[in-house]
């Protein structure tokens, strides 16, 4: 208890950095995934080529390697030093964005063809078709996998201590060397990571339910507590990271 009282503020500081990295990385990944994913469904070959190159490159290289590249090789190459937190967000966002782009592309392609044909028959513009018909349906399809990806992203932030950022993992190691309490020092960090993941899972389920309700696929309402257990319909095995 005394240990917790003394060290908790430091853990909270570390967890705050972890959360910032997660949110920053997720924001960048989301934008990249949407833009690159939509490009991958267009009929222009150059747009699809951009998608393929981006996805295959950043899915193929570990985020840690990209991070090292930005922190150590990039300043050597250009003379500009990147702030480690910025470099970490960039590396994580590029990496998860590549997985996300594939998800977006697959979800858009999975929208039944008749839906698109109907928009043509109704003389919708491209923008109307995407915004009113295709994306709302694809969105519901993407969310479960996005949920897995955000957990992976949160876990991937732990590598940033290797480039000198004081995140939750880094705090645990500092406290461990200061106190010698390996079990306690790491145990608290493990619990905080676990709780952070549960919060993210809960939030994603909330979004999922809203998306399904908007499409009329899930009954409206339903208490928040029902979100604590995994959905029974439409559950799928997580796509590998």
């Amino acid at each position: 208890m005394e240990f917790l009282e003394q060290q908790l503020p430091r853990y909270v500081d570390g967890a705050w950095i972890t959360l910032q990295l997660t949110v920053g990385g997720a924001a960048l990944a989301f934008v990249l995934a949407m833009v690159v994913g939509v490009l991958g469904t267009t009929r222009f070959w150059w747009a699809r080529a951009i998608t393929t190159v981006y996805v295959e490159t950043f899915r193929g290289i570990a985020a840690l390697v990209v991070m090292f590249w930005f922190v150590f090789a990039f300043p050597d190459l250009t003379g500009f030093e990147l702030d480690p937190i910025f470099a970490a967000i960039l590396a994580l966002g590029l990496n998860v964005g590549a997985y996300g782009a594939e998800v977006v592309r697959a979800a858009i392609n999975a929208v039944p063809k008749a839906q698109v044909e109907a928009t043509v028959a109704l003389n919708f513009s491209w923008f109307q078709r995407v915004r009113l018909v295709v994306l709302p349906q694809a969105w519901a399809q993407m969310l479960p996998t996005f949920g897995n990806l955000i957990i992976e992203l949160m876990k991937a932030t732990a590598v940033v201590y290797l480039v000198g950022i004081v995140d939750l993992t880094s705090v645990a190691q500092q406290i461990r060397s200061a106190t010698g309490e390996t079990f306690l020092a790491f145990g608290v960090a493990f619990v905080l990571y676990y709780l952070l993941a549960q919060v993210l899972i809960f939030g994603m389920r909330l979004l999922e339910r809203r998306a399904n309700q908007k499409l009329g696929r899930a009954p409206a309402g339903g208490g928040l507590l029902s979100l604590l257990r995994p959905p029974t319909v439409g559950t799928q095995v997580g796509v590998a990271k």
Partner: protein
Amino acid sequence: MWDFEFTFEAMPDLLNGLLTTVQLTLIGYSIALTLGLLVAIVRRVPIIGGVLHFVMEFIRTTPLIIQVVFVFLLTPANISAFTVGVVVLGVHYAAYTAEVYRSGIEGVAKGQWEAARALSLPTSRTWGAIVLPQAIRKVIPALGNYLISMFKDTPLLFAIGVTELLTQAQRVGSESFRVVEAYTLVGLLFLVVSIPSAIIIRRLEKRYVAV
């Protein structure tokens, strides 16, 4: 600008690192495949299964790197970093493969279980000859994806000093001050392995999902 001489000098060291990376991946993956299957089966037992599920969920939602460092600090000094790394990697991924196997097992039609029961097959035969062959066949592509993920997670073992690819790159890079080449080569080597593997997995997917 790009130093080709350095590239040739550094290659043997980097390829050595790549070899360690591949070894880590293959051994860790065998652990993940075996342990994951065991977990998926034991999870069906009441109470013990529930506890096991919670443990696996905990492993799955906390970062691999802190698990690796934690276990490394707790193990006696005579156990090598390689061993610790490979075991933690395997156990971490078992938490994922167990979920994949579970979905496969749940996907086996109920009638298959009933038929096995009607023929009064012993439990071992029900699992070994009826359920698992059908379950595993369906999840081969999903399992394959985790092989690639695992390959890309091996650089984390840099944290405990396993001499895999990234560690080697850092060493040759700092000895010669050719950091750009060293880290760029690591990236390229990763692509050289992961893109062909991704293509193979996609082939597998077509072959197994179609049936």
